[in-house]
């Protein structure tokens, strides 16, 4: 009772990275709250997956294994979580801010009349005093996220409703095994008790998996362009530099909205979170929502004609100048001075 539960997401039978990241965060929160870390895994052919999960410090793993539960569908997964949460009364429930988690989370929170905060970038434990009643709430989950188009950072709390639910994007939290031999308890749920026939009303007709060719998440160097790049033509310069340096091209939301780059390249709170060893920000002013997705880069270079661009404050190197002047010079130097 009153534990932390993480929903484990499966993509084509494999556990998503975001689930391991949430377990890692969940473990540290559980230590702080002196409660158990639990996980729920729903799908089919789940045998063996428990061995991947327990090392992250999972005390109890609930599994629901049925051929009809894979691939993910909203209604059956919702029914299982809602009933399980009603039985177990977790204080905190976490899931990935993925197309699955953002489909499932709101449905579950609505059924339980509980609060859900989407796309958190930080989760902490803290206290809260109600300004009117002076009631003091201890050990609340602070759900911290950029809001208002990423211009502010809001700390959200759910003082009275349980579970306190939050989704977190992939790549935002670290993943770390606590103990390869960690011993947890495996509980197989009797699926028929949790789902109804009516939960299978939506039929999946076809699934067509296409791995996105753009892989900015794992790129060691990212050349990212913002609205300040000015045009699709100038964006080609970024691709040229990326080709030379073995980098990937990323973009801010404004650049994607302007049609300079594909959506798959978007970095930031509503895009991908990255932590490359080098991040070259070209014509990016640095809205919070963008910074949230790249702040943890090892080294940041900002190229901007505005010497006061907010991103310059977190950049290790600032080049004040036009992107179309600077990039050709970088390419030229690199070609002349490396083999």
């Amino acid at each position: 009772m009153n534990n932390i539960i993480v929903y484990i997401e499966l993509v084509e039978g494999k556990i998503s990275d975001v689930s391991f990241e949430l377990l890692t965060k969940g473990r540290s929160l559980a230590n702080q709250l002196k409660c158990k870390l639990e996980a729920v895994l729903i799908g089919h052919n789940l045998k063996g997956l428990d061995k991947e999960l327990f090392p992250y410090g999972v005390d109890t793993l609930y599994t629901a294994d049925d051929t009809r539960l894979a691939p993910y569908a909203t209604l059956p997964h919702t029914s299982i979580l809602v009933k399980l949460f009603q039985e177990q009364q977790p204080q905190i429930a976490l899931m990935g801010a993925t197309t699955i988690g953002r489909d499932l989370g709101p449905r579950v929170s609505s059924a339980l009349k509980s609060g859900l905060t989407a796309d958190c970038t930080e989760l902490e434990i803290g206290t809260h005093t109600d300004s009117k009643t002076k009631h003091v709430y201890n050990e609340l989950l602070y759900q911290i996220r950029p809001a208002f188009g990423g211009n502010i950072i809001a700390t959200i709390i759910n003082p009275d409703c349980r579970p306190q639910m939050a989704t977190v994007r992939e790549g935002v939290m670290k993943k770390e095994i606590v103990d390869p031999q960690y011993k947890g308890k495996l509980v197989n749920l009797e699926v028929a008790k949790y789902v109804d026939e009516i939960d299978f009303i939506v039929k999946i007709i076809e699934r067509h998996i296409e791995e996105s060719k753009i892989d900015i998440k794992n790129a060691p160097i990212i050349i990212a362009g913002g609205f300040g790049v000015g045009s699709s033509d100038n964006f080609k310069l970024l691709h040229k530099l990326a080709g030379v340096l073995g980098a990937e091209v990323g973009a801010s939301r404004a650049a994607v909205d302007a049609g300079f780059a594909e959506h798959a390249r978007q970095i930031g709170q509503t895009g991908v979170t990255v932590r490359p060893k080098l991040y070259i920000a070209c014509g990016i002013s640095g809205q919070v929502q963008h910074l949230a997705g790249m702040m943890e880069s090892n080294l940041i270079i900002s190229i901007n004609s505005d010497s006061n661009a907010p991103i310059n404050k977190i950049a290790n190197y600032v080049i004040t100048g036009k992107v179309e002047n600077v990039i050709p010079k970088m390419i030229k130097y690199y070609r002349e001075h490396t083999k």
Partner: protein
Amino acid sequence: MKKFNIIVLAKQVPDTRKAGKDAMKADGTINRSILPAIFNPEDLHALEQALRVKDQFPGSTITLLTMGPPRAVEILKEGFYRGADDGILLTDRAFAGSDTLATSYALASAIREIKDVDIIFSGRQAIDGDTAQVGPQVAEKLGIPQVTYAEEIIKITDQTIQVKRRLEHGVETVECPFPLVITVNNTAPHCRPRNAKRLMKYKHASTMSNRQENNDDYLASAIAHTHLTIKEWGVNNITVDHEQLGLSGSPTKVKKVDNIIFQAVETKTFTDMDEDMDELMKELVESHIVG
């Protein structure tokens, strides 16, 4: 041929994409007044999908439903210009302070009043909150299925609809009977533009309370042009449990709001002159950051 009863959920939002440095006040709060209020972009994508159903099934009706302050009537008019048949402004002080849960409760209660709804479209998410929660929560409150991240309607019959969804690593087509909620992704087609005839027809549309405020001869004009009176619903027009509305119906509270705190780093500054660029690149290459 079936005539569909379609609802499109829409929200008037501050255009947060235009929030530059001047959008922040000295005390660190947002200066909302300088941001234009717009039709949430993905809700326009949703309207387009509704219009496409209507193109295929003439006689279907599209009702735009929005919750917000009186001025949100602007997006209902925008919807009329582009082809919506009806619009309802859900507005009441009792809704103030709603989080996504209280919002979806109010919207679902209003949809129940409309009755016999087949499809509820909405945008995937609104640009001021980016939560993507209201669509699924409305579906749950109504006890009907949801299809999120919709990109295209593949096939529609009297009984079922097939929808293509855009996921992280590919696409999925699902088939669902009516009624259902469909949230439309940003990768779906843009909304068709305003229609000039409809613009002329609806440009004077307004709510009764707006007319009253402007001291129009509101009763006369409302009687003469019923299509120009936009429906305005408050808590008294819907059956609700007041505890589930507004602040009291909102489990999430905003504890605090901060400007981002930039971590101080030692910053080296360069110009775009050749010597500066050479020095920077030399440093990067020598420290094996590149190459």
